[in-house]
Structure formats: C-alpha cells, structure tokens
C-alpha cells in the first residue's frame, strides 16, 4: 500500500519525499523500475541548491560505479557534481532538461528526472540507499545545521 509523500517543514520551507523512493546521502532519489532505476534530485537538495540553469547528465552508454559523477548541475548559486549512488549503465537521459532545466526545481520527482540506469545488482543497490524516513531524518539535521551556520 502506498504511504504517499512524507513532508518536512522547516521555517517557511516545505520539503517532500515520496515514501516509495530510496535516497542517497547526497540527496539523489532512486526509483527502481524492475531491473532499472530512475534517478533525480530530491526536493530538499533542489531547494538548497537554487534555480537550475544547466543540467548535464552523463550520456547514454556510460557505465557508472557508485561514487562516480552521473550528472553536473549548475545553479545560480553552485556547480554540483552529482555522484551516482549505485552501479549501472545509463540507458536514458531526460532530453527536456536541455531546454527546461527548471523542471528539476518545479517537479523534482516527476518531469525533473535526470537519468535511467540499467542496474547490475538491484539488491546490492537497494541496501546501499536510505528509506524515505531515514533520508528525512538526515535532511532535518542538515537543514538545522545550515541555519546555525
């Protein structure tokens, strides 16, 4: 049964986390679709990073190991090198982001997806990721730390 979307409110900010997705510590969401995984930026990470001006995923055919760069995001605030949390091969990238990178900000879990990877070992990949509850707890700590900085 779907648990829907978890929410974290911090001051005036509302962060959402689909309960069925898994997450890396760096704020990449992963949604397994059989032997494949669709990835993108979590709502928390996109809000922290600012308006996305350019999103450049690694091209189709690129083989990824955990910790290797899967995409580069340039916002008006920062340049982010996004690291793949899982091993796999890029089989699809979101062509809409070339002309509308703001989709990552507007719909991070839907139209703002980054890439689809063919996964080598789904169970190993799943075990390396956090559940939505676990990631929400981490996001809360990170949000509090940022306010105190």
């Amino acid at each position: 049964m779907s648990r829907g979307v978890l929410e974290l409110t911090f001051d005036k900010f509302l962060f959402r986390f689909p309960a069925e997705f898994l997450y890396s510590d760096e704020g990449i969401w992963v949604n397994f679709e059989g032997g494949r995984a669709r990835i993108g930026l979590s709502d928390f990470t996109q809000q922290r990073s600012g308006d996305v001006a350019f999103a450049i995923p690694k091209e189709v055919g690129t083989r990824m190991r955990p910790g290797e760069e899967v995409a580069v995001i340039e916002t008006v605030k920062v340049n982010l090198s996004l690291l793949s949390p899982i091993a796999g091969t890029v089989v699809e990238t979101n062509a809409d982001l070339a002309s509308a990178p703001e989709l990552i900000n507007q719909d991070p879990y839907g139209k703002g997806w980054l890439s689809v990877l063919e996964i080598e070992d789904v169970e190993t990949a799943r075990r390396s990721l956090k559940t939505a509850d676990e990631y929400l707890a981490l996001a809360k700590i990170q949000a509090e730390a940022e306010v105190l900085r």
Partner: protein
Amino acid sequence: MIRKVPVVPCSGIGKSLGAAAREAAFVLSEDLRPGDAKVVALGLLVLGDEDARREVAGGAAVAIDGCKLECAAKGLENAGAAEIRKVAVFDVVRKHRGLKPEGVCDLNQDGLALARAAAEEAARIVDEIVAEESRA
C-alpha cells in the same frame, strides 16, 4: 501626453535574482530609457492602488522576474494589465554562463552585470512597445 511604459520588477528578497530584477528595472528607467519607461511597484498594483492600476491598464507593461515563479507577471495579470511582456532574469543567466550573482541588498559584480543584461533586453521590448503605440 506620451505614456511611459510601466515596468514591474519582482524585487524578490530571498534570492539575488530578485535583487537583479529590481536593479534591472532601475537601470532601464534611469539609464537606458528614462523618457520611455517607468517603474511601478508590484505591491501597489496587486493591492489595488488606483494610480498603479491605471498605469498598466493603458497599454502593454513589462514584467521583470528573477525566477520561473514569475511573481511580477502573475501580479500584472491579477491586476488586469492590458498586455504583459516578460523578461526573465533567469533566462539571461542561461545566456551568460558562469555568472554567479550574489547579494540581495548589495549585488556583486556578476549580479550587476546580470542586471545590466536584463535591462538591455527590457529596453528592446520597451522600444518595440513605443514603436507599436506610435503607429496605432
């Protein structure tokens, strides 16, 4: 009396893009097109100030928005503007890759450069509007 084209910046206070939109409106109305453009405050417009609404009801207005939320354009629409032409500072960022604007009260050099570029785009739109209205 020749109408000045109303220009409405978003002036968002949370991001440097809002500050850049505000500065762009000043560059436009004070430096680039002082005879043809006039800044109108978004708050006055949305809350029903009669003078502000009269300015935008008379013809095309220019919205200068910092980001894709388009607060100034939406405000103009809600205020019953006759026609809205848009400048998106965010799109200007994409044309000038590498600019990293900072500051909300005091923009850094990149922010001022961004504001200038946005003002120049807005100036072209103001020129178009003035030409159309003089032909009408």
